[in-house]
């Protein structure tokens, strides 16, 4: 199955060997047919339902979608960091493959996966207040992983932590090492989260709504910071957000998620200029824009996303889609490519000339390629 060349045996544990960044061939991240479902009393909730994507090093992939579309679960599934079963949850299941720098992560035992977390793949969480430990000083939270993962000594780790805090733009890092999370402002907490995430020099950063809940000015700072760090370290980044504006300026490519699936993916400018899937178009029309004249009303998407525990056959967007026809309610449109990496899942994609022409021919022929 796995080529043995990627493994060495040390006396205690076996280590994964990752090629240095410059030598890595092929995409940094390849996700194929990833599915994550929760067994709940209401039925099986397919939070991620067959997602495939690729990401090259140093590139940014934006993931957008309404709440509950599975953005967070996709990021966590890629990392292999799934929630444990709770009172109302009977179990979590994941299938499909996630290849990182050529290694399949899905089959790794937990001990080896933990080695990958932090050092190779790191995550910035949606809510820094719950992701940081409230009773541990910021300094300890940063040095902990340095000492654990990188085997640094106490003073080395402290020095690195100081450097990290100033690299994420925290003034007076010495004082803030000794602060508790609640003593920091929201923007500073998110900077600390980022410092922790990049501490061990990961090559893939999964940022789950890193700026949600922050002021625009702070949001701009955090996004600039992420972009700078990414450039310096040629990190690949998955930027999850519900704010299309965030993705527009920052992501090379953008994927739109709906009900656990990627329904459209393209170069960001292309996607925003020429969405092919009606849902992407509706999402773009629903946000108020600064460029519009005052008093311009946003166009809401009617209805609500479907219940993931009881999905009807056919296109998942059909109940809300203004272009839906018979075929949409019968068969699920596959994700097909329309050339130049523009992928979409729709039987009747919009095109610039005529939004009503069925373009299924285009879809079918491209789909076989």
């Amino acid at each position, binding site marked *: 199955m796995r080529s043995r060349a990627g493994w060495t045996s040390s006396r205690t544990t076996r280590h994964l060997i990752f090629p240095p960044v410059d030598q890595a061939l092929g995409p940094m991240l390849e996700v194929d047919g990833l599915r994550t479902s929760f067994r709940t009393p209401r039925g099986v909730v397919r939070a991620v339902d067959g997602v495939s994507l690729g990401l090259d090093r140093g590139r940014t992939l934006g993931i957008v979608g309404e709440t509950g579309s599975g953005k967070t679960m996709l990021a966590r599934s890629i990392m292999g960091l799934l929630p444990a079963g709770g009172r109302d949850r009977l179990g979590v299941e994941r299938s499909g493959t996630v290849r990182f720098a050529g290694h399949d992560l899905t089959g790794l035992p937990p001990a080896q996966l933990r080695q990958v977390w932090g050092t190779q793949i790191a995550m910035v969480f949606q809510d820094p207040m719950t992701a940081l430990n409230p009773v541990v000083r910021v300094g300890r939270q940063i040095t902990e992983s340095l000492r654990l993962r990188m085997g640094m000594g106490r003073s080395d780790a402290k020095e690195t932590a100081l450097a990290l805090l100033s690299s994420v733009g925290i003034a007076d890092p010495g004082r803030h090492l000794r602060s508790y999370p609640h003593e920091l402002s929201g923007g500073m907490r998110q900077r600390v989260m980022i410092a922790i995430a990049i501490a061990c020099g990961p090559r893939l950063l999964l940022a789950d709504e890193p700026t949600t809940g922050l*002021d625009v000015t702070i949001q701009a700072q955090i996004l600039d910071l992420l972009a700078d760090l990414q450039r310096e370290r040629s990190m690949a980044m998955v930027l999850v957000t519900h704010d299309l504006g965030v993705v527009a300026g920052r992501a090379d490519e953008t994927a739109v998620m709906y009900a656990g699936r990627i329904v459209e993916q393209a170069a960001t400018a292309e996607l925003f200029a020429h969405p092919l899937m009606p849902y992407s178009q509706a999402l773009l029309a629903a946000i108020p824009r600064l460029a519009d004249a005052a008093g311009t009303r*946003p166009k809401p998407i009617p209805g609500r996303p479907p219940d993931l525990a009881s999905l009807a056959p056919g296109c998942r967007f059909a109940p809300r889609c203004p272009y839906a026809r018979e075929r949409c309610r019968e068969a699920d449109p596959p994700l097909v490519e329309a050339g130049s990496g523009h992928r979409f899942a729709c039987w009747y994609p919009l095109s610039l000339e005529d939004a009503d022409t069925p373009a299924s021919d285009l879809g079918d022929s491209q789909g076989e390629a």
Partner: protein
Amino acid sequence: MEGSQPAGTPNQPVGTPTGIRNQPAGTGTEGGNGKEILRVEHLVVEYGPRRRRVHAVSDVSFLMAEGETLGLVGESGSGKSTTGRAIAHVQPPTSGHVYFDGIDLGGLSTGRLRRARTQIQMVFQDPISSLNPRRRVRDIVAEPLAIWNTGTAAQRAQRAAAMLEAVGIDPVTVGQRRPQQLSGGQCQRVSIARALMLEPRLLVCDEPVSALDVSVQAQILNLLADLKEQHGFTMLFIAHDLAVVKSISDRVAVMYLGKLCELAPADTLYDAPLHPYTAALISSVPSPDPERGPRTPLAGRTAGMAGTGPVAAALANEVPSPLHPPSGCRFRTRCAYAATLCAREEPPMRQLAPDHFVACHFPLAH
């Protein structure tokens, strides 16, 4: 009436936007009819004991014309909510006056204030905490009438059902649920229905869509605009999202650290901001417009605005603590144009165009 003062008192505050009475307050849109409904004069709200006093709102003055929508934007902690709460008199001002329809709310007795206050209703940010978790939706919406003993229980229920219908909630099925069984958007609809039951003349919306998902946000914005057309109330719309505020407001006011920076018709404010803070805020907004292209880090680009590069860079600092606001201009610690005068003297609110007010020593030139 006790405490009532004629509008346009001689002690007209310096820099109070006075132009409203003579001109349409809005800019062509549904706008106002020009009649003053709300006058806020030298409003000050402070929290906490003397040594740790938070200067949440410091000397804010403005007017609202009947029927207009005034947007209020600013970063978190700038005092937007406090201003809204002081106007609705659920938070008594430390000093200053709020005249509603010419009557000083602060001068009213408790009983009269209770009655007068019903003309001003609020919608809040957090959909969950703004509804009593123990009561059913139909009771929540009928409660305002129950408080004032309007009609019989059956009549109240009927009016509540009609109002629920009007905000797009099915009074039969959803009406008998409790708030935790609703989605965030449904909760906000119920909040709006409750607020409109007393037929208020001023609706203070404190970040009503901030906690909602994009598509639901558009639904609620449209609902508010529709209801406003039907009922003809005046609206103070508080939000931190500049694009949301622009889409719904006739005029927009910008707050920073408890002070009003700029007030102008929406289009004017966004196209030609005069205050460096307004310009910085606008340039920080990530734009989903492909024609604007990706924003280069630390150099905000906004169509048709010159010299915004240093402005965006200046916002690298964080907001100073409202416990110890900077001397002079409160924005000076983050302002790219700050001069010695700015630290020494507080810039007064000035009227630089017929309906454009700005508090800055060195307003931007266009």
